[in-house]
């Protein structure tokens, strides 16, 4: 599909030089006329948004920064449920006020700016790669702390008064189920494991909990971790109003345990520690089994998201090998669903 949208992305794709000169105008306005942009470099990994690292050097001091930018500066297509970068920046500021560890937002740019839809934040030192966090000696002292730290951070996010937030999309468990069911069905690629998960989720949907601000992608990969533990909560693009159990369960989904399946929370810790810290920080008191339905929902969602990303390849919208390959990760979520449903059946 040689869509007009695809052509626009190619036309606006930024080189390091283009990004540097576009950032310079912002930096001189904020830091002073001598401000220089040094070492602008696109980071690997991020798929739906571009992430760049750079330093602002002014008055002899360097400020490490991160630029988050829509691909090629163009807002993301309608298939994504991302909230948009300016909104993301607002939420990070609200989270900071609630005591959640987040980077400082330093600047917000609109789609009419030289750089396109974007925001700039301070660059926090630490590691986001799940495999390294779970394996490297450097994080040996951090790992046992992470469950409780994540519980506290989630309680903070979930405590942000909804009245203070800009209009965010709201969706509870059943509306998400409807949405992902519809997307899955639109692909016409039958997957019996997904059918069974969809049917089971529909039959056993829990009563909705009180609605809160849900981060929407709170998991290893989006958490900056240093030697002390959780340093910063990143990647707010899927935030919405919804069920607090969604965030807790998403962190438990096996896809984010990076091989350490034995530790239900993120591959690093036990769920009861997270739930205790969550309640101690003012959150609702959940039991471990309250998280089960949402964890199955989480694995199903990730499986369908992988199908969506593969669809970007098969439609021609994104010809990268990464997008092709992710279609062969759907079966990872299928085995997780089989394992989870086996557990449910054994307990029934």
């Amino acid at each position: 599909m040689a869509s007009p949208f695809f052509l626009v992305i190619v036309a606006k794709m930024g080189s390091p030089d283009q990004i540097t000169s576009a950032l310079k105008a912002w930096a001189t306005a904020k830091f002073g006329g001598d401000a220089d942009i040094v070492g602008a470099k696109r980071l690997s990994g991020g798929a739906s948004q571009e992430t760049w690292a750079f330093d602002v050097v002014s008055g002899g001091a360097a400020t490490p920064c991160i630029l988050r930018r829509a691909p090629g500066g163009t807002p993301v297509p309608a298939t994504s449920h991302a909230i948009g970068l300016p909104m993301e920046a607002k939420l990070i500021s609200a989270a900071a006020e609630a005591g959640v560890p987040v980077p400082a937002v330093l600047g917000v740019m609109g789609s009419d700016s030289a750089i396109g839809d974007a925001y700039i934040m301070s660059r926090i030192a630490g590691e986001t790669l799940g495999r390294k966090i779970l394996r490297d000696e450097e994080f040996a002292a951090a790992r046992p702390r992470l469950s409780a730290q994540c519980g506290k951070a989630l309680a903070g996010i979930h405590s942000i008064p909804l009245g203070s937030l800009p209009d965010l999309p709201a969706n509870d468990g059943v509306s998400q189920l409807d949405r992902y069911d519809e997307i899955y069905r639109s692909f016409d690629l039958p997957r019996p494991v997904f059918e069974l998960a969809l049917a089971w989720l529909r039959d056993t949907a829990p009563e909705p909990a009180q609605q809160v601000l849900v981060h929407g992608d709170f998991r290893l990969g989006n958490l900056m971790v240093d030697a002390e533990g959780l340093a910063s909560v990143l990647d707010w693009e899927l935030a919405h109003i919804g069920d607090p159990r969604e965030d807790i369960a998403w962190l438990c989904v096996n896809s984010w345990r990076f091989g350490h399946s034995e530790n239900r929370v993120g591959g690093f810790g036990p769920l009861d520690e997270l739930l205790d810290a969550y309640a101690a920080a003012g959150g609702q008191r959940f039991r471990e089994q309250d998280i089960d339905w949402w964890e199955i929902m989480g694995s199903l969602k990730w499986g369908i998201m992988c199908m969506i990303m593969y669809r970007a390849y098969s439609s021609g919208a994104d010809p990268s090998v990464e997008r092709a390959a992710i279609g062969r990760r759907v079966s990872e979520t299928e085995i997780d669903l089989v394992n989870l449903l086996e557990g449910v059946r054994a307990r029934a």
Partner: protein
Amino acid sequence: MHDAPSTKELIEAVKRFIDETASKQLTGHAAFHARVASNVLGTVMRELEQRPGAESAEAASLATLLGADAGADTDSLNRDLCARIRSGAMTLSTPGLLEHLKTTTIAQLSIDQPNYSGLARAVTPRR
């Protein structure tokens, strides 16, 4: 038709080129994509070896589960299975259903991502 080099040898050669030569000269996003490309070739090699057997086993298991004629095509059988689950005619407690899905998924994942943790969990007896 010649098969020297064979399909497997050709893919191995390209994978080795990516792993031992090309990857080392790449950084950032391109290096990441090179790793993905190498993994894709691993999947293709496993698919060539394992898919024919796995697909016959899946078809036989589907035919038994659905009471269908042996020899019916796998895609129609899977569509039939999906429809029965969706209608509620087959559920988590239907004898043999979860076992069929588990066996099929293990076979698929053994091609797609054989190192995935969920696979080890699936083939390990439960406590």
